[in-house]
């Protein structure tokens, strides 16, 4: 393994730029950590941490020089790779009918993401499965996804709503990166331990001034990961969770959630795996040119389940049930993985402080205790 200093990180961003990438990294905007284009270390936050709890998010001064000292940015990579709004196609009337021209979502430059967390990468893997591995693939997503370069960074200071460890994640990026950094800040100085995850990663790193890592560096990194792993703000009991969710379909608990839920859709907007979309058509006044736009949609919206004559999920309780049951159970049947990566964003950004881990625990507690009973409840309902 190699290490590099702050100057090395600057060289890394420059090397990515030379290789043709548009580099995105964490930046402070409007009192929040967001993902935005950067041109060097100077653009990165310095000594900025965050405090996250249910319905609570504040940036704080860490009193140190850490560049990646926050837990999670407000949104993951979804906003760039699967944007909230995009043109799908444009159709023009012709003398005999109409012609359709599809939009090309290929970015002018491939994107590199600096600072991606393990939860972000696992969410990316979920989207790869959902959007690009089945019979029909999402063409615009693939066009944006192809060629993405990832510089992941170990999460040194998880937030109060984090529970990635419960969902099989780790503060230390496990897979899906080209390079992975662990930021070290101690008596030996401010430096980054670098792990290479791909051939492309090795090629870029070769252009950066690095040194051979010493045992003190790897030991410090291991200690940091161990501390972070032990400081998750929340936990989720995943034992038999799939069956718990399905068996809870008629639980009276849904009404207690619905009495708090505003159906504001915040949770689905910040969720890095939520993928539901709708389309909107706009037509010029002459009715000769029309465009189809795709926009994020949310299962909390009243019209989400509309079919002629009415709405399938009329009540707030049925909409919350749809969301959490899909995340924690439906995904497993559909894609063989959980729809939740444990990033905690839905908890932080819920204005009513509804907590997915607490609701799952409440549903579990309201069910008969033994597994046989669960099965029976699920099947005879």
């Amino acid at each position, binding site marked *: 393994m190699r290490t590099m200093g702050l100057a090395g990180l600057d060289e890394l961003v420059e090397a990515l730029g030379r290789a043709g990438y548009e580099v995105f990294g964490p930046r402070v905007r409007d009192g929040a950590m967001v993902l935005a284009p950067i041109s060097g270390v100077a653009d990165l936050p310095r000594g900025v941490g965050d405090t996250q709890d249910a319905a609570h998010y504040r940036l704080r001064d860490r009193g140190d020089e850490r560049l990646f000292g926050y837990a999670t940015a407000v949104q993951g990579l979804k906003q760039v790779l699967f944007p909230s709004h995009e043109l*799908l196609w444009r159709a023009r009337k012709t003398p005999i009918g109409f012609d359709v021209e599809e939009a090309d979502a290929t970015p002018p430059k491939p994107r590199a993401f600096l600072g991606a967390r393990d939860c972000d990468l696992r969410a990316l893997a979920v989207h790869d499965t959902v959007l690009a591995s089945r019979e029909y693939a999402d063409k615009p997503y693939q066009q944006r996804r192809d060629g993405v370069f990832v510089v992941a960074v170990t999460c040194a200071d998880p937030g109060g709503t984090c529970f990635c460890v419960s969902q099989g994640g780790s503060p230390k990026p496990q897979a899906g990166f080209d390079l992975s950094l662990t930021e070290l800040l101690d008596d030996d100085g401010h430096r980054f331990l670098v792990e290479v995850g791909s051939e492309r990663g090795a090629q870029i790193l070769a252009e950066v001034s690095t040194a051979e890592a010493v045992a003190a560096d790897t030991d410090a990194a291991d200690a940091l990961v161990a501390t972070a792993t032990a400081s998750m703000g929340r936990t989720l009991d995943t034992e038999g969770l799939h069956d718990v969710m*399905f068996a809870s379909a008629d639980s009276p608990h849904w009404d207690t959630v619905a009495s708090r839920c505003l159906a504001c859709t915040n949770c689905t907007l910040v969720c890095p795996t939520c993928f539901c979309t709708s389309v909107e058509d706009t037509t010029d006044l002459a009715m000769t040119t029309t465009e189809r736009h795709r926009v994020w949609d949310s299962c909390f919206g009243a019209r989400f*389940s509309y079919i002629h004559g009415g709405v399938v999920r009329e*009540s707030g309780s049925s909409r919350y049930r749809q969301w959490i049951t899909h995340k924690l159970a*439906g995904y*497993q049947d559909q894609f063989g993985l959980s729809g939740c990566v444990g990033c905690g964003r839905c908890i932080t950004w819920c204005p009513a402080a509804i907590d997915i881990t607490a609701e799952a625990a409440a549903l579990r507690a309201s069910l008969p205790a033994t597994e046989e009973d669960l099965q029976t409840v699920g*099947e005879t309902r």
Partner: protein
Amino acid sequence: MTATDVAREATAPGPMAPRPYRVVARRQDTHDTATLDLIPLYGEQTRWRSGQFMMLYAFGVGEIAVSISGGALPGEPLRHTIRDVGAVSHALVTSRVGDVIGVRGPFGTSWDAMDAVGGDLMFIAGGIGLAPLRPSILEAVRRRGEFRHVILLYGSRPGEGFLFTDEIEDWERNHGFTVRQGVRAGLAEMTSREEFDPLRTLTLACGPDIMMEVAAKTLVGKGVPGEKVRLSMERSMHCGIGLCGHCQLREAFLCVDGPVFSYDQLVPLLATEEL
């Protein structure tokens, strides 16, 4: 792949782009329902299977999922029977011969009526639900000799009117169909007939959820295996390809896992309100 194939691949429209089709015939079925025959403006007619649906696009208005109501033999025009219930269906129903509409598809699972060969085939339709069954009914007409009894139970709400009445008469008179108006009474009669054989009866049903569920429960109560009762489900479908998430029913994407399901697959999914 040759260079030409690569070029074709790169320029082939994605599954979200509609193909223009011309309306070559239109028939008014009831006061609010019309049938359109469609042929593509460019290129070959698409092939489909009975029970599948298309996404139909009215230029500048929007897109809806509509089942195919015409036969699935090569050379047949694409036929849709559409009920005027919203902005898009209104634009489609009121389109005229010569108009061009957009088509994506076909999508979804099929009825596979031929699984009933050697036994009895029962169609249960509620209202516009007769339209998605028609491709399989035509199959049964064409290969009538391969089935024992072919039964059609058809109900419709007061004032809704009846579809394909000339054809129904033809199926009954000339093709030995047993036809009953009204699903509940028809089902009671059919399942109490001496020749009713629950293990040799395949049922295909399309209509409101509650009608299908009651029919399926009745049949299963009479000893019909759940996998021999097939229902075509309707939910909000926007993309047709399992990506937009709207049509989910717990773990099922109705547009790719359905619309046709066997009742045993649906039992846990129909048990809860607003699922």
